[in-house]
C-alpha cells in the first residue's frame, strides 16, 4: 500500500517542499530510501525501524520503499525520521490519517531508538516555509514547537514521541500549542548586558562608539593593551535600540538553522554579539561548507561582530569580509547549492597600534623595529579599511580618570540618544529598504545629506588634503549625517562634518 506525508527541507534559510512517500509490498524484505538522501537520511532507516518496534507497532517483513520527492533536491539531516515513520505506519495500515477533508498535516522530527522525538535545527525557517505554501499545520517534536508557534497562522501539534505524533495525526490535529506572543517574549527579556558606566575615562572613544552605534557604522578601535577596547566593545549591544519583532524573527531564523538556539529559548531576543577568535577560517567567518551553513557574519546579523586583534586574522578571512560589509548579505556558492544569508552587521574591530602595543603611548616606549611596524600596518588592506567609517583612539587611561570609574554615564542614558537618532533615520529612510545611515545608497546620500556652505568647503579641502577615495568621502558624509541626527539637526553643519573627519584622519599614514 502507498501513503504519503508532507515535510520540508532546508537549503540555507530557504525551505523547499518535500513529499515523503512510502510503499510497502509483499516481496523479499528490504528497506530502502531513495530521492537523493545524504548519510544522515540513510541512517534514518535504523532509527525508524527501532522506533517503530519500540513503540509497540510491528515492522513487517516486506519490501519498503521510501521516496523523498522531488528527487533532484538533496535531502539532509535527521528531520525526515518522523515523516518516514508516519508514512510507513500509514502504508502498513497500522495508523489511519485523520486529516481527510481538512487539509493535510506536515511532519518534522528526529527519532530516538525508543521512539522519543528530538528537536530539529532550522524549525522556524521550515515552519515559515510550510505556512507560505499553505500547509495547515505541522506535527513536530515538543522541544521544537515553541519556535514553530512564532509563525502566525500555522497550527502546531507538538509530540514527545512517535506514539503521540500518531495520536495527533489520527485526530487530524489534536492538542495544539498556543501561538507565541512575540511582543511579550521580547518585553520579558531581562537586560543583562554590561553597563557603559563601568568604563573609566575614554570620553572621546565613548563618543565615537555612540556615533557608530547611532548610525550602525563600522568602527576600528586602536589602543594599547588593557586600555578598555574589549570593555567598550562588549557594551555596544547594550546601547543599541531594542529589537523589533521582525528583527528578532530574522535573527532567530539564522541561529536556528545554525543549531545555536539555547534549550527552552525559542526566540533570540537580544542583539547578537559575536566575537570569533582570530584563528577563524574564512568559511567560518563568512559561511561555507558543502551544504552551506551561516558564518559569523550572518550570526552577527543585526548585531555586533567583534574582531579583537584585528590584524592577526587570516588575510583570506579579512578580505572575505569586504563583500558582506558592503552588501549586507553573503552568497555562498557550492557545487550542490548556492545560498544567500543576510549579514547586516556592525563591525567592531580592535587592534594594538603596533606589535608591542605601546606606539604613541604617553609614558611607555614602543620597542618595535620599523620593519615590524610596516608589516603590521600592511596586514590591513586599503579596501578593507575604506569600509570602516570610524577610527577611534583608545589610549591608556590617565590615573585620575581611573579612580573615577563608575561616575561615567550609564548605557541607558546613551541608549536614549541612540534611539532618538535612529528614529530620525528610520523616518527619513522609510521606503528605501534600510534603517540606518551606514547603509544608505549613494542616491540616498545625495537626497538625505544636505550640507551647509561651510561644510561643503571643508569637505572639498579634506578630499584633497587627506586624499580620500570617493567611497571614503561618501562615508564621511554618512557619519556626519549621524552626528547631525544625534544633535537633532536636519542639515549637516560644519561642526558635524569636522567631527566626522576626525574619525577618518586617524588613518594609516596620517598618525
Amino acid at each position, binding site marked *: 500500500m502507498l501513503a504519503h506525508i508532507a515535510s520540508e527541507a532546508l537549503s540555507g534559510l530557504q525551505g523547499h517542499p518535500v513529499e515523503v512517500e512510502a510503499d510497502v509490498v509483499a516481496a523479499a524484505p528490504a*528497506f530502502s530510501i531513495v530521492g537523493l538522501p545524504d548519510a544522515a537520511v540513510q541512517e534514518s532507516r535504523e532509527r525508524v525501524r527501532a522506533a517503530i518496534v519500540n513503540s509497540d507497532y510491528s515492522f513487517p517483513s516486506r519490501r519498503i520503499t521510501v521516496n523523498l520527492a522531488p528527487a533532484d533536491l538533496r535531502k539532509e539531516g535527521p528531520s525526515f525520521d518522523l515523516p518516514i515513520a508516519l508514512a510507513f505506519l500509514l502504508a502498513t495500515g497500522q495508523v489511519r490519517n485523520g486529516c481527510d477533508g481538512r487539509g493535510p498535516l506536515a511532519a518534522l522530527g528526529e527519532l530516538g531508538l525508543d521512539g522519543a522525538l528530538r528537536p530539529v535545527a532550522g524549525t522556524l525557517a521550515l515552519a515559515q516555509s510550510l505556512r507560505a505554501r499553505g500547509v495547515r499545520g505541522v506535527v513536530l517534536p515538543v522541544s521544537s514547537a515553541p519556535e514553530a508557534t512564532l509563525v502566525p497562522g500555522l497550527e502546531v501539534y507538538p509530540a514527545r514521541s512517535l506514539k503521540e505524533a500518531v495520536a495527533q495525526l489520527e485526530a487530524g490535529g489534536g492538542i495544539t500549542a498556543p501561538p507565541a506572543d512575540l511582543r511579550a517574549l521580547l518585553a520579558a527579556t531581562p537586560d543583562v548586558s554590561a553597563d557603559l558606566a563601568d568604563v573609566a575615562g575614554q570620553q572621546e572613544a565613548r563618543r565615537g562608539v555612540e556615533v557608530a552605534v547611532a548610525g550602525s557604522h563600522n568602527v576600528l578601535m586602536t589602543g594599547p593593551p588593557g586600555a578598555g577596547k574589549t570593555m567598550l566593545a562588549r557594551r555596544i549591544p547594550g546601547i543599541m535600540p531594542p529589537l523589533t519583532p521582525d528583527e528578532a524573527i530574522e535573527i532567530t531564523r539564522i541561529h536556528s538553522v545554525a543549531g545555536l538556539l539555547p534549550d527552552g529559548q525559542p526566540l533570540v531576543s537580544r542583539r547578537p554579539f559575536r566575537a570569533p577568535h582570530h584563528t577563524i577560517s574564512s568559511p567560518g567567518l563568512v559561511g561555507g561548507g558543502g551544504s552551506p551553513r551561516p558564518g559569523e557574519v550572518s550570526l552577527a546579523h543585526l548585531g555586533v561582530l567583534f574582531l579583537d586583534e584585528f590584524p592577526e586574522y587570516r588575510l583570506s578571512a579579512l578580505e572575505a569580509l569586504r563583500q558582506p560589509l558592503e552588501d549586507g548579505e553573503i552568497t555562498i556558492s557550492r557545487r550542490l547549492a548556492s545560498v544567500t544569508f543576510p549579514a547586516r552587521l556592525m563591525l567592531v574591530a580592535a587592534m594594538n597600534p603596533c606589535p608591542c602595543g605601546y606606539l604613541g603611548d604617553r609614558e611607555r616606549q614602543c620597542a618595535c623595529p620599523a620593519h615590524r611596524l610596516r608589516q603590521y600596518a600592511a596586514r590591513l588592506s586599503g579596501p578593507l579599511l575604506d569600509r570602516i567609517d570610524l577610527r577611534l583612539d583608545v589610549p591608556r587611561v590617565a590615573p585620575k580618570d581611573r579612580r573615577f570609574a563608575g561616575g561615567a554615564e550609564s548605557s541607558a542614558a546613551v541608549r536614549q540618544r541612540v534611539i532618538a537618532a535612529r528614529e530620525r533615520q528610520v523616518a527619513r529612510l522609510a521606503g528605501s529598504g534600510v534603517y540606518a545611515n551606514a547603509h544608505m545608497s549613494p542616491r540616498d546620500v545625495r537626497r538625505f545629506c544636505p550640507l551647509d556652505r561651510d561644510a561643503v568647503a571643508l569637505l572639498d579641502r579634506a578630499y584633497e588634503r587627506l586624499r580620500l577615495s570617493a567611497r571614503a568621502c561618501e562615508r564621511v558624509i554618512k557619519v556626519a549625517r549621524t552626528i547631525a541626527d544625534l544633535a537633532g539637526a536636519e542639515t549637516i553643519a560644519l561642526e558635524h562634518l569636522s567631527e566626522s573627519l576626525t574619525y577618518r584622519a586617524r588613518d594609516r599614514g596620517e598618525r
Partner: protein
Amino acid sequence: MLGRNVRVGRGELDLIVRRAGVLAFVEVKARRTTTYGAPEDGVDARKRRQVARLAELWLGVRPWALRGIEDVRFDVVAVDASICPPGVRHLPGAFTLDG
C-alpha cells in the same frame, strides 16, 4: 513446505516454506564444533547476499508464489552439533535484502 534443496541456477536454497500469510526462505547452517563461533555466525554477508539473490530469482519465475502472502522473510536455522542431542535454533527474519 514448498521445496527442499531447491536449485536455482548454480545456487541452492535449503528450505522454502509457507504458513498462513508468511513465505520464508530458510538457510540451514550446521556446525560440529563451536571453536570457530556459533553456527548462525557462519551465515556471513556473502551467504546472506547469495540467499537473497537466489530468492529473488526464484520468486521472479514464480509470481504466483506470492499470492495470499503478506510477509516474506529470510530465516536462519542453526544446528549446533557440538552437543548431544544437537541444539536447534530458529531465527525468523534473520536478515533482509539490504543486510
